[in-house]
C-alpha cells in the first residue's frame, strides 16, 4: 500500500526584492508501508525541506501529495496536525528532547495529543516503549543526565510511541560517535521493522544510507534515484 505519493511537487520561497527561490522542483516519490528509503545530499540541497513536506510540517507550493491516498492540501490545519501526530514519527539530529522533563515525560509527550486508550494509559505505554529501547532503568532521568546515545534512544522511543506508519529521521546519528550511531541505527531499523512502519532517513553518512533498500540523492532540489533494491 502506498503511504506517501508525491507527483510533480515543488517548493519555492518568496524572497524580498528577489525572484522566488526554488528549493525543490518536480519531486516524484512513492513511499510504501515497510519501505526503507535513504536520501543523501549536500548541505542546502533541500533535504530538510523535503523531510518537512513528507512530515506534513510544510505544504508544497505546487504538485500533488497524497498521504494514505488523501490529498494533503485538502486537509485543514488541525486535521493535518492530528494526522501528523497519529501517523508520523520524527527523529531529529539534535534529539530535541524537552528539557526539564524526565525520559518518561518526554516519551509521554506525543501521547498527550492522542485520544482514548493511548491518552489515558500514556504512562504505561511510554514505560513499555522505553523498556523496548533499553532504558527501562532510566525512566526518571532528565535529558542532561543521559549520554548522547541514551538521549537519541529516548527520542526514538518518543517518535515511535504512538505507532506511526512513517518514521522520518533527520541525520539521526549526526550528533553521535560512530559506534553509538551504529547501535542507534540498529535500534531504529529493528523497531521500524517490528512495527511495519516506513522509514525515511536523511543523512550525509554513506554507511547509514546503505542500510536502506532504496537510495535517493537530492541535488539542487532535484530528487534522483541512485539505486533501488526490491523489498
Amino acid at each position: 500500500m502506498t503511504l506517501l505519493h508525491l507527483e510533480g511537487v515543488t517548493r519555492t520561497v518568496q524572497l524580498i526584492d528577489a525572484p522566488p527561490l526554488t528549493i525543490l522542483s518536480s519531486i516524484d516519490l512513492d513511499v510504501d508501508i515497510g519501505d526503507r528509503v535513504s536520501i543523501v545530499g549536500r548541505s542546502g540541497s533541500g533535504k530538510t525541506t523535503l523531510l518537512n513536506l513528507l512530515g506534513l510540517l510544510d505544504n508544497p507550493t505546487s504538485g500533488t501529495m497524497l498521504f494514505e491516498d488523501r490529498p494533503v492540501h485538502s486537509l485543514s490545519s488541525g486535521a493535518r496536525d492530528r494526522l501528523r501526530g497519529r501517523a508520523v514519527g520524527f527523529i531529529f539530529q539534535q534529539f530535541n528532547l524537552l528539557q526539564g522533563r524526565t525520559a518518561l515525560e518526554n516519551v509521554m509527550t506525543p501521547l498527550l495529543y492522542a485520544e482514548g486508550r493511548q491518552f489515558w494509559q500514556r504512562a504505561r505505554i511510554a514505560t513499555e516503549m522505553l523498556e523496548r529501547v533499553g532504558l527501562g532503568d532510566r525512566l526518571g532521568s532528565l535529558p542532561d543526565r543521559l549520554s548522547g546515545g541514551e538521549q537519541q534512544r529516548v527520542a526514538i522511543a518518543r517518535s515511535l510511541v504512538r505507532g506511526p506508519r512513517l518514521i522520518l529521521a533527520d541525520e539521526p546519528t549526526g550528533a553521535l560517535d560512530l559506534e553509538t550511531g551504529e547501535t542507534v541505527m540498529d535500534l531504529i531499523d529493528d523497531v521500524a521493522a517490528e512495527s511495519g512502519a516506513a522509514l525515511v532517513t536523511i543523512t550525509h553518512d554513506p554507511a547509514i544510507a546503505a542500510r536502506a533498500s532504496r537510495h535517493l540523492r537530492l541535488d539542487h532540489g532535484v530528487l534522483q534515484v541512485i539505486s533501488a533494491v526490491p523489498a
Partner: protein
Amino acid sequence: MKRVASNLVGSVIEAWQEVRIHKTRVMLSLIGVAVAVCAITTVVGLGAVAQQATLESSERSGGRAASLSLFASTNDGSTPTKMPEIWRTALERYQIDYASRVVNTSQTVQFADGAVPVQTVGVDLPYGTMHRITLEKGVWFTDEDQARLAPAVLVNSIFWDRLGRPDLRTHPTATLVGERTTTAVVTGVYPALSWETEPAMYMLADALIAITPVVTDPNLQFGPPSYELWVPVDVSEQLVTALQRDVQGALGAEASVQVNRQDYAAYMDGDPYLSLKLTVGAIAGLVLLLGALGLVNIALVTLKQRIREIGIRRSFGATAARVFFAVMMESVVATVVAGIVGVIAAVLIVKSPLVEDFISQGQVTDFPPFPVEAAVVGLVCATVVGALAGLIPALVAVRVKVIDAIRY
C-alpha cells in the same frame, strides 16, 4: 467528546508541567500577580471597614436609617405643656418601639480639681440602640435605672479619666451641682470620639428633668426637648407627614412643629457610598493593571525561550488550538494560584488588629467580617488577568512556524 475530554485534561497536564518546570519564571509571575490581587482584595476589604466606620459614625450622630426628629415649641420658644401626652399618643398610635426624648443641657459636675460644666444629654432607654452606642465599661441604661433614687449616668472616657478611672463594681459616684446637689452613680463608660476633649455624659431624660426641671424660659440653659424615632425606611415619609399633621393639629396654630428625617441616608440619593466605592475600585483596577502588565512582559520574554519546545510539540501532533489553549491555561493556572496566595495575604492584613485600629480610628464597634465579595473579586480578577495576560503569548505561540521553531 473523547477528544474534548483528553484535550482538556492534556492541556491542564501540560500547563501544570510548565508551571512545575519553570518554577523561577512562574514565581516571578506569581509575585507580581499575588501582590496585585492582594492589593485589590485588601483595598476592597479595607473599604468595607472604612465604610462601616463611616456608617457607624453617621449613625451615632444622626441615628440609623430612618431616624425622624420631632421638634415642637410655642411661639415664645417654650415647650408646649401638652407635648408629653401628645408624644405618648403618637407612639401608641403608630406602634413605634424605638423612640426617645433628647434633652441637651449642661450640668455642672464636681470633680476633684473643681466644678466643671459637662455636656449632658437626657435620653430614653431606646436611644442607645437607635444611635448604636457601645460602652467600653458597664451597660446601657436598663428599666432598673429608671427606679433609682440616685440617678445613673453613663460617662465618656474623658469624664471617667477625671474621676480617676474607678472600678464600676465599686459603684463610683459623681456630684452634680445645681439648685439641689445630686449624687449620681456612674454605671457605664463609653469611648470618647477622637475629636472630643471635654467630659460628657448621658442621663435618663426623666432623671435629668427631675434634678433640673424643664424650664419654659428660653433664656435658661436648655430649651424644649426634641423627640427622635427610628422607623422603617419604607414608611418614613408617610410618618413624617402623619406626625406633622397630628402634632400640629393637637397643639394648634400657636405652636411650631417640625418633623424631619435626620439620618445620613436621608441626604443621599442612591448608594451613599458609591463615590467611595468608585474611588477604591479605580485604585484597585490600576494596581491590577500594573500587575497584569508585568505578567504579560514576563510571559512574552519567556515565550521566546520556548519557541523550540512549541515546535517540537507541534511536530508530535499538537494543533494550533491546543498550543493556544495550553499557553493560556498555563497563565491562568499560575494566576489562580497567585490569586489564592494574594487573597490569603489580604485576609491576614485586613483582619490584623493594627490595621483594623488604624482604619477604623476608633469609630467601629461592629467590625464587619472579611467581605466575601472582596475574596471573590480578587480571585475573579486573578483569573481574568491570567486569561488576558495569556492571550497575547498564546497568539504569538500559535503564529510560530513549526519548521523555524524546531531549528530555533
